[in-house]
């Protein structure tokens, strides 16, 4: 075998003064970086396979381990960086497509960071959310063009307009689509439980819903994707809403592939495919080649669910996103979910993840503008997703025009994910993106659900504080309220697409 040229990405530093040879690191590393040598009573390590997930460093009882990024010291070059060189070495060795997981890690700019929020001073009072009621309840679904009332003999009003089905969220944050198969049973259960406990929704992803999770149905949005995995009438009936997945921000335009080795008995039942067979989602839905085709599927699902459940359509943010979203609303969708180019994934070709799609900030602003201009903004709710890192990002998205957001990566980080971006290896040391029974038990769903609920509580509290500062006491009053946003360091063109003023204006 010829010499491999790819160099180790991480340095594992073990402090011999602190290491007690307890071998926790040996037992916890699924990449076999650590090993125990009985002859010398020493724990040794092979850094070549370290992915930097920090599992060993986190569990080491004496803090003897430090994992550091070790960019191989190639000659300094701004174009031919070590990442570029290593990638070429990898492909020269394998002839394969470079794979990555989680969201685009190359983007140097986050437009959220160039948008600042307003606060009240003197001329209008700010509100203290600890003293006064603050409303975060969010309703997702089509809203009527106008509301008509009937009055009885005593003049008491009642609603004459028939309202479309709505999802009621206690906070404008939901968990993104992550399928059982891409993530573990315990990770899936954590998300479903937390959604129920906090009064929001988790999304099944495209891999079906195992019967064990049916009791969580009232807090689940189920997906119908191009592979149609796990879709039958019971699946549609048990959920609160149905989402047609057209695309995903991390890999717009391409499908998905769950390797057969991950398809065990339980996943086979859930996806309705044989044990050990690859679960391949085609790039397009083979029955959707136009907005009219999409309309047929939307109305098939509405018929199947007796018009009692909102139907969502999720697309990746791409160049003509505003026109596409307009078509989706006209096709009858109750919710349009738009996934920006920083959205996460369990596996995507690196070049696609890092180069295809557009940022959610621009896509969201463009979609909200377009739907308003066409007078159809009320016909569907807009859900933004793709790289939301904090409550401030959420507040900015809502002020830009989103009804709610999906969080995926942030939720996984709450579960313990350290963003090593190796989900596709199936060796997740945190028990999240793996089906290996030795690893999946590392995520206790009781702890997971507790941590997710804490995250939602913390973010919701911060959203209330930011709204209070602006003098707003209901999330409805913040929605699309771009007067509360100002841009810094943005060009006139960027400001005009975002529809916000520059700081100082």
């Amino acid at each position, binding site marked *: 075998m010829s010499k491999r040229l790819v160099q180790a990405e991480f340095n594992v530093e073990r402090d011999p003064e602190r290491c*007690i040879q307890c071998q926790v690191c040996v*037992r*916890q590393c699924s990449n076999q970086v650590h090993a125990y040598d009985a002859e010398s009573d020493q724990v040794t390590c092979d850094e070549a396979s370290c992915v930097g997930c920090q599992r060993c460093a986190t569990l080491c*009882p004496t803090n003897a381990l430090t994992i550091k990024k070790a960019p191989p010291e190639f000659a300094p070059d701004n174009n031919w960086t070590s990442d570029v060189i290593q990638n070429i070495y990898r492909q020269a060795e394998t002839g394969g497509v470079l794979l990555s997981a989680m969201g685009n890690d190359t983007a140097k700019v986050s437009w959220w960071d160039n948008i600042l929020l307003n606060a009240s001073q003197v001329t209008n009072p700010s509100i203290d959310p600890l003293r006064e009621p603050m409303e975060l309840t969010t309703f997702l679904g089509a809203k009527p063009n106008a509301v008509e009332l009937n009055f009885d003999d005593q003049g008491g009003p009642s609603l004459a307009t028939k309202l479309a089905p709505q999802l009621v969220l206690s906070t404008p944050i939901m968990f993104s689509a992550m399928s059982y198969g891409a993530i573990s049973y315990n990770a899936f259960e954590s998300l479903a439980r937390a959604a129920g406990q906090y009064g929001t929704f988790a999304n099944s992803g495209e891999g079906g819903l195992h019967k064990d999770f049916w009791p969580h149905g009232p807090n689940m949005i189920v997906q119908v994707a191009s592979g149609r995995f796990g879709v039958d009438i019971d699946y549609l009936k048990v959920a609160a809403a149905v989402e047609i997945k057209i695309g995903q921000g991390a890999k717009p335009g391409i499908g998905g592939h769950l390797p057969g080795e991950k398809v065990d008995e339980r996943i086979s039942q859930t996806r309705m495919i044989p044990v050990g067979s690859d679960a391949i989602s085609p790039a397009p839905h083979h029955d959707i080649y136009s907005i009219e085709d999409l309309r047929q599927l939307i109305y098939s699902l509405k018929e199947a669910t007796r018009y009692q459940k909102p139907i969502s359509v999720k697309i990746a943010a791409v160049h003509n996103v505003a026109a596409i979203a307009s078509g989706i609303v006209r096709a009858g969708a109750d919710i349009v979910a738009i996934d920006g180019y920083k959205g996460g994934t369990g596996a995507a070709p690196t070049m696609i993840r890092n180069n295809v799609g557009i940022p959610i900030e621009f896509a969201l602003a463009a979609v909200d503008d377009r739907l308003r201009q066409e007078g159809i903004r009320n016909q569907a709710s807009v859900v933004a997703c793709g790289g939301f890192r904090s409550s401030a990002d959420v507040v900015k998205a809502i002020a830009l025009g989103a009804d709610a957001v999906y969080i995926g990566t942030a939720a996984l980080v709450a579960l313990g994910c350290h963003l090593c971006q190796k989900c596709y290896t199936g060796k997740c040391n945190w028990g999240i993106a793996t089906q290996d029974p030795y690893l999946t*038990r590392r995520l*206790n769903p009781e*702890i997971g659900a507790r941590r997710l609920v804490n995250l939602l509580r913390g973010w919701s509290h911060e959203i209330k504080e930011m709204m209070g500062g602006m003098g707003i006491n209901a999330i409805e009053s913040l929605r699309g309220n771009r007067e509360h946003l100002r841009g810094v360091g943005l060009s006139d063109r960027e400001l005009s697409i975002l529809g916000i003023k520059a700081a100082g204006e």
Partner: protein
Amino acid sequence: MKRIVAKEEYCMNCRLCEVYCLVSHSRSKDLIKAFRQERGEIVPRITVERLGPVSFAVQCRHCDEPACVEACMTGALHRDPATGEVTHDPQRCVGCWMCVMVCPTGAIRRDRNGHVAAKCDLCLETGTPACVANCPNEALVIEEDND
């Protein structure tokens, strides 16, 4: 009485319970000193058993009718009828290992250095068993048993 219950579905075989049990029963109560200077002298009183992906921690079950107490010829092992705890008095233990032979769960280990039996004492000194307090995945919990 209070019992330590292992949830084998969440035990991840890190064996930190063994590490912290050993420290809890060391003289120094210090991780590094206990391992560096006292290892060999002391043994953990909890053992993680593993077969394939499944593992769980075994320690004294504090049986209602303990075989070890029956077998102990010196009275070193004793069941407190009030609390239900099975205690071990090293002063009376002669290291005949009969308790080790009869324990149905294999929870008693030999402290070869002192030539006495070593078993879980529920960390009576501190109140909270070290294994429960330090299990990173809450796979060991204390449950009140009302029998």
